[in-house]
């Protein structure tokens, strides 16, 4: 045993022992969470997503420059880690190394390792430039990040000098493969020192490198660098499909005393893995409509604050003393933070490690509303309306079909032998502006020869708003009533002009016994145009910009159909706003915000309207009743109603046919 073996054994076992202990605590904290997480399904798709997004870095590369930087560091880290492992092994037992893989392969390995050592240094230089010169807001200031960059940079420098002195001291056969270290060694050779001195300096830098690696291993558990361990599993265990419903609560289940999240431990282990995966890149925050209009919510801060809450309660959690765990609402995660969310999901879609922010927010709302009755007064009114009138607005249920007056649209009670059920929704039923959209859409269905009925006064609110506000109990009451009605008429196909109804009917009712083929009217209209059943003829000599509805786009990946409807309009010029598709900005109405006052910061609908006005389009096209209301108000707020009209895609098409 050489002194190196001996020293390494002591230092490494100490470092790995301490690091392992810290990791074991992280693991235990995760296991102590009470909430239910999904089970793993669809393994091939999970393996695929890991290959694409971890090995292929696809999600990270959505941001070009930062993505290339990260991919360089990631692949460099993997390859250089092989060298680090070899180094550890050969320190323990000198003759052991990886040369058994063959000279060609080994020298190739050495070459790429040497290449990436410098590539990582370049990437680190860019990271520093970005962090200290460009300073993107989402990145923020982080001592942790500075430490990680210093560590990583120092590691690379140590490797280069280690290799260079190694070449001079040992003259290994693969020296020429070290494309950067070899020239460095020639430069150092100018020192004219003895071979023994070079060999000792090589050993010195090897130890510098090993000690930094060991130090890093102890530091990682408390750092955002923890993502190197957690992001892989988190990607593997991500929610695979774009469409997702909120988690169902089984109220019949005996023994449940807590509904929703009142304490961090009410969340699931997967939520904790989300915290561990967060690398604080800020992409979620960059696109958050609440954050960008000075609300106290930042999705990034939320994840970090929940993690902090968990760490603060570490002793109680590890002792399984859940009663002593403090409330999830604290000085950081305030009620205002939780109520600011519009459920637009920009954060989740932008997240390169597939953290699900909205699930946590909406589970916290459930506890606030159902367990504690803590909710904004306006939200309370909305729920009372839904309880008493089956609509978020206070209108009589007997007036639900009044929008269709004079159109002779049959109800299902009158004629259920139809191709498709037109789901009107509360906005289409009661809101004067959106009633017109429904009339246009119905007229288009007529013109296309589609046989359809409505439920009339039998329709009730889908419960979307109740669910997003946090009242799962009310949501299930409404859902069950609707599903009973729909199943009684044996409804198979549903079309609706409301993306919120669409999402709930399509992705959420199936958990309660309601499985239907559901279409948004943009899909339906695009198809009717394609089939030649609707032929737009009259010209729209206008510039039109399309506003993506979150529940259509981000929640259901429907981007092309509404645009194809607009492109079918003769003479119309369709232009995009600054933010569109997955990066689109919410109108501010989702997540029950439609019915709540916006007391903090700039109004989201005004901010979005400003983006629409920047395009100089004369028409802002919408495909959602709430977006319609928010953008119409926004245009009025900007005093542009004389120049800019907000129209639904169905209205635009109907006027062209």
């Amino acid at each position, binding site marked *: 045993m050489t002194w190196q073996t001996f020293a390494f054994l002591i230092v490494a076992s100490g470092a790995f022992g301490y690091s392992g202990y810290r990791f074991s605590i992280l693991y235990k904290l995760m296991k102590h969470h009470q909430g239910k997480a999904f089970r793993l399904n669809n393994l091939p798709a999970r393996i695929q997503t890991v290959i694409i997004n971890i090995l292929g870095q696809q999600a990270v590369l959505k941001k070009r420059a930062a993505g290339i930087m990260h991919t360089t560091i990631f692949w460099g880290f993997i390859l250089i880690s092989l060298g680090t492992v070899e180094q550890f092994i050969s320190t323990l037992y000198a003759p052991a190394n990886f040369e058994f893989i063959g000279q060609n392969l080994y020298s190739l390995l050495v070459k790429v390792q040497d290449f990436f050592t410098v590539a990582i240094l370049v990437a680190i230089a860019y990271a520093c430039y970005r962090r200290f010169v460009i300073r993107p807001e989402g990145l923020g200031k982080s001592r942790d990040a500075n430490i990680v960059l210093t560590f990583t940079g120092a590691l690379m420098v140590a490797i280069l000098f280690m290799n260079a002195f190694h070449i001079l001291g040992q003259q290994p056969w693969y020296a020429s493969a070290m494309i950067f270290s070899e020239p460095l060694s020639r430069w150092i050779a100018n020192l004219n020192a003895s071979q023994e001195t070079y060999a000792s300096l090589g050993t010195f830098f090897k130890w510098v490198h090993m000690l930094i690696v060991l130090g890093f291993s102890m530091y990682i558990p408390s750092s955002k660098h923890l993502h190197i361990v957690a992001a892989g599993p988190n990607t593997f265990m991500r929610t695979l499909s774009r469409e997702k419903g909120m988690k169902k609560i089984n109220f019949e289940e005996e023994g449940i005393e807590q*509904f929703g999240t009142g304490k961090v431990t009410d969340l699931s282990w997967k939520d904790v893995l989300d915290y561990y995966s967060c690398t604080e890149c800020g992409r979620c925050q960059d696109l958050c409509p609440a954050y960008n209009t000075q609300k106290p919510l930042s999705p990034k801060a939320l994840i970090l604050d929940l993690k902090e809450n968990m760490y603060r309660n570490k002793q109680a959690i590890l002792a399984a003393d859940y009663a002593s765990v403090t409330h999830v609402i604290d000085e950081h995660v305030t009620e205002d933070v939780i109520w600011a969310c519009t459920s637009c999901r920009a954060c989740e879609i932008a997240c390169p490690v597939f953290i699900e922010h909205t699930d946590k927010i909406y589970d916290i709302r459930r506890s606030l509303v*159902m367990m504690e009755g803590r909710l904004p007064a306006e939200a*309370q009114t909305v*729920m009372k309306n839904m309880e*008493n*009138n089956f609509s978020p607005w206070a*209108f009589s249920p007997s*007036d639900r079909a009044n929008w269709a007056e004079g159109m002779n649209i049959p109800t299902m009670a009158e004629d259920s032998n139809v191709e498709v059920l037109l789901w009107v929704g509360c906005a289409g039923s009661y809101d004067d502006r959106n009633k017109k959209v429904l009339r246009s859409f119905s007229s288009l269905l007529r013109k296309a020869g589609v046989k359809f009925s409505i439920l009339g006064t039998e329709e009730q609110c889908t419960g979307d708003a109740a669910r997003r506000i946090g009242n799962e109990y009310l949501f299930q009451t409404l859902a069950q009533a609707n599903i009973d009605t729909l199943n009684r008429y044996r409804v198979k196909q549903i079309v609706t002009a409301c993306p919120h109804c669409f999402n709930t009917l399509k992705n959420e009712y199936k958990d309660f016994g309601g499985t239907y083929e559901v279409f948004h009217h943009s899909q339906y209209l695009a198809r009717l145009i394609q089939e030649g059943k609707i032929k737009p003829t009259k010209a729209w000599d206008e510039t039109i910009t399309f506003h993506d509805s979150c529940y259509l786009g981000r929640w259901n990946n429907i981007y092309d159909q509404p645009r194809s409807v607009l492109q079918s309009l003769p003479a119309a010029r369709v232009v995009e706003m600054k933010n569109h598709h997955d990066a689109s900005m919410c109108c501010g109405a989702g997540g029950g915000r439609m019915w709540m006052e916006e007391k903090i910061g700039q109004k989201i609908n005004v901010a979005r309207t400003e983006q629409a006005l920047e395009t100089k389009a004369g028409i802002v096209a919408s495909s959602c009743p709430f977006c319609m209301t928010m953008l119409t108000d926004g245009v009025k707020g900007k005093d542009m109603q004389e120049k800019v009209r907000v129209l639904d895609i169905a209205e635009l098409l109907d006027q062209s046919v």
Partner: protein
Amino acid sequence: MNIYVCIKQVPDTETKIKLNADSSWIDTAGVKWIMSPFDEFAVEEALRLKEKNPGSTVTVLSAGPARVIDSIRTALAMGCDSGVHVEIAETADNNLAAKALAGALKKEAHVDIVFSGKEAIDDGAAQTSQLIAEYVGIPYVTVALNAEYGSTVKVKREIEGGAFELFEAPMPLLIAAQKGMNEPRYAKLPEIMKAKKKEVKLLKMADVGVSETDQKIRYRNLQLPPPKQAGKKIAGDPATQAKELVRLLHEEAKVV
């Protein structure tokens, strides 16, 4: 403290009122029934008083047909401890209801305070609270905006012209709540679950010492208000417009 709240079940504010076949009552088919909103302030006030005085109980009372049990459960879900349902006919008047509720209160061993809404939003009579107090024989303050509970109760009530009156009364007393007295709470789910199991005592008219003869008003030939007329626009120069307006007010509206 033994706290009591009297509530009334009324049609939801958005109900389109229709009359029954012989116009003797409204057509109750399809009506969504709710607790009268002013009574929600009464329930909230009762619950807040209970929370400030541990060991207190809140009993909710309502008089009406079988359907009123739902509104009693709503109050229980907000946090009341038990309920009393006095069964009286759908078409009972305020006097019969008040006397029935007073009868139920008098059966209780000890009453410290009674709350109710200042009026029910269906008939808007605003007299049941006062009648209850009269029949029980306790003081009352109506249209109350806030109350301070001590050895006596100091109640601020709203009067016409945006002015206020301050009353002081000993317990037991009845306080009829005005909108703004508090922000009624939204029932928590565990409380909704518990409410289903809380005790609601059913009393018949005979149990509380009332009979049909206590009904002083009987309804006959109800009529809906005439549908709202479209507005009239008076054209012409200001002098002609003024002249025409005066003529219409005098001849058609008969107010000047």
